[in-house]
């Protein structure tokens, strides 16, 4: 009994079969992904559907409220948090191609929604895309070919708030769900960075409020990706990728930027 064609490599618990009941997931598409990098969300749909997930897109969704919340503007963020709960509260699983927005729901909605009916359930059932593939669907690697030199930019909130991987500061054994998915693609060469998980300097309003430091942080990340010999920079978060791409474009760097969903989708046989 082999895996169905074109699927991710799935590690099964003993006794499990491939004929698991279809999973239904609501796609949470962050506002800036929707408007500025829709390919990341489309690719997430392709990857999920290729593995038998029924994808639902609740069209009433707008934004999780992170920009306002991170600026401290609780009054502006709270209605958006309530709206998010209304739109997504009824689903068994909510999947999002962004670590930062997922973390907003899971780790930062408490000041707005603590005690609201359905909130704890929503928190427990909102997943970043790679996390969903690994933790819920049980994939231990991705199938397909992606013959490129790729560097993985670790976005901070996915890494340190969601625990998509073990951060470089920690002494725990190193592991990383995103890296684990990419590593099994045929032909891929994942190049190591000098600083494995330094912040790109986007930081939401930080990018504008602290422009000087933000720009230098971004340029330093780009230099690290360049010295590593990366052809493509990928990551879980479009926000970081837009920041890095915008700097690379201004400086006419040949680096290419793809969301991790785009890499996984393009690799699909």
């Amino acid at each position, binding site marked *: 009994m082999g895996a169905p064609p074109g699927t991710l490599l799935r590690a099964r618990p003993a006794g499990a079969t491939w004929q698991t009941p279809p999973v239904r997931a609501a796609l949470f598409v962050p506002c800036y992904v929707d408007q500025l990098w829709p390919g990341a969300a489309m690719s997430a749909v392709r990857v999920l559907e290729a593995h038998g997930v029924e994808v639902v897109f609740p069209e009433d969704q707008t934004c999780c409220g992170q920009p306002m919340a991170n600026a*401290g503007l609780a009054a502006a963020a709270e209605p958006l948090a309530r709206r998010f709960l209304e739109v997504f509260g009824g689903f068994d699983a909510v999947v999002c191609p962004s670590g930062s927005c997922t973390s907003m729901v899971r780790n930062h909605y408490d000041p707005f929604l603590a005690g609201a009916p359905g909130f704890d359930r929503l928190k427990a059932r909102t997943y970043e895309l790679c996390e969903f593939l690994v933790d819920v669907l049980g994939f231990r690697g991705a199938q397909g070919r992606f013959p490129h030199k790729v560097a993985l930019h670790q976005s901070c909130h996915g890494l340190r708030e969601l625990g998509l991987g073990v951060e470089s500061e920690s002494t725990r054994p190193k592991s990383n769900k995103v890296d684990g998915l990419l590593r099994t693609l045929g032909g891929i060469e994942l190049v190591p960075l000098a600083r494995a998980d330094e912040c790109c300097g986007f930081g939401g309003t930080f990018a504008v409020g602290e422009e000087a430091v933000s720009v230098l942080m971004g340029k330093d990340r780009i230099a690290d990706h360049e010295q590593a010999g990366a052809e493509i920079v990928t990551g879980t978060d479009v926000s970081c990728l837009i920041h890095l791409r915008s700097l690379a474009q*201004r400086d006419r760097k040949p680096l290419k930027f793809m969301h991790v969903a785009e890499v996984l989708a393009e690799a699909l046989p």
Partner: protein
Amino acid sequence: MSSLPVFQGGHPEAAARFVENEPRTHWHDQSLWFVREKRDRAASLVPDWEALRDAAAGIRAHVRGRLPELLEEFERNAVARGAKVHWAADAGEHNEIVHRILAERGVTRLVKSKSMLTEECGLNPYLEARGIEVVDTDLGERIVQLRHEPPSHIIFPAIHLKREEIGELFHEKLSTPAGLSDPTKLTEAARGHLRQRFLRAQAGLTGVNFAVAETGGVVVCTNEGNADMGTSLPPVHIACMGVEKIVPSLEHLAVLIRLLARSATGQPVTSYTSHFHGPMPGGELHIVVVDNGRSRLLADPAVRGLLACIRCGACLNTCPVYRRSGGYSYGWVVPGPIGSALAAARDPASHATLPFASTLCGSCDAVCPVRIPIHDTLLGERRTLAARGLIAPGKRLGLALVGLLLRSRASYEAAGGLLRFALKWFPRFLLYGPWNVWGRRRELPAPPVESFRQTWRRTRGPLPSPAPRGKGSPGTSAGGSPRG
């Protein structure tokens, strides 16, 4: 003399001035990253490092919960060992007490080892204005003191200076040969210079890393032995500590000592970990215990966790913002993530930009040996600033407007369409006007033809919803079938 440099605007302005010299900023960044990597290696050599951090966090939480009893226990035991314990409610009282001790004994020459608390209290200028010569004896501290600057880092006070600059300073102040910048030779020169000060001093003042309630002893960690020299030669030792420095027993101290030097510099232990239990024979030991706002922090659940800090500086070394903006950009005695959080907790109005001097990357939390949730505290402080009307009006109103647009699907979609239209059709001079801070050194994203939801609607639906729209409804469902 240790007052902070004149500080125009807030952190962003000061940081921008620091970043202007990009090679120097990279040098500063690399120096601190080197320490961060040393810390990583040192931590990785300790089995159960993460469990040790858990234990330390527990000890510090326990201390917060029992602070009054532990302080009284400490006082009883310290007094029983012959020390004199003084209580200071604030910086002013602290300075008066220290001055009174010195004045009563006719002391005019004081040597100090490193103490961030005395920096916080502004002790040096206070004493100097009263005719007392104060010599900082930690090498880095002495360097910044000779330059009439405050420390730019709580562990490496002169980390912002290159050795050539120190060579020039020593040439001018200590008469070393012009052009000498060899670190060993400069250190030797400083040692000779300081030795004279130690021998002449009539009293020595130290900070306190930990005070042990059970024994009544205070513990001072240094690498240069200057605290020991400064307390062994003169007959009077004054030790100044914040109320939060208490640990219950030596057993608890051991946990924190194992974490401190590894987190601070990557050393397994500081060269000197000196325990002072009572005065030396024929001498005096005065312990000045200072509150200076700490009780107020303790009373506020949102920020009381900050009192766990053991001033290792690991969060400074790992902070990508601190490394690229320098200690002075924070405009407060303790810079970096923990300094931002402490400053804004104490006085939000005066430090309104500091909670925003962070990308909230969380690296500070990940290195903190006592697991202070620094970045969450900074986020909470942003809410406090907003609640007190301390967010710049432009930012507040702009984001509030965006928030309003996002509250309905129709206005969100219209705004998104307008944004993509503008990005596509507006001429560059309009898009990249002076109002576009993002676009000064970055490109704006090229807009896609369609948003995700437009593509979704065009290719998938809208299909009839299985359930009526509204509260609790999953909305438009259009999945399930393979595409095409």
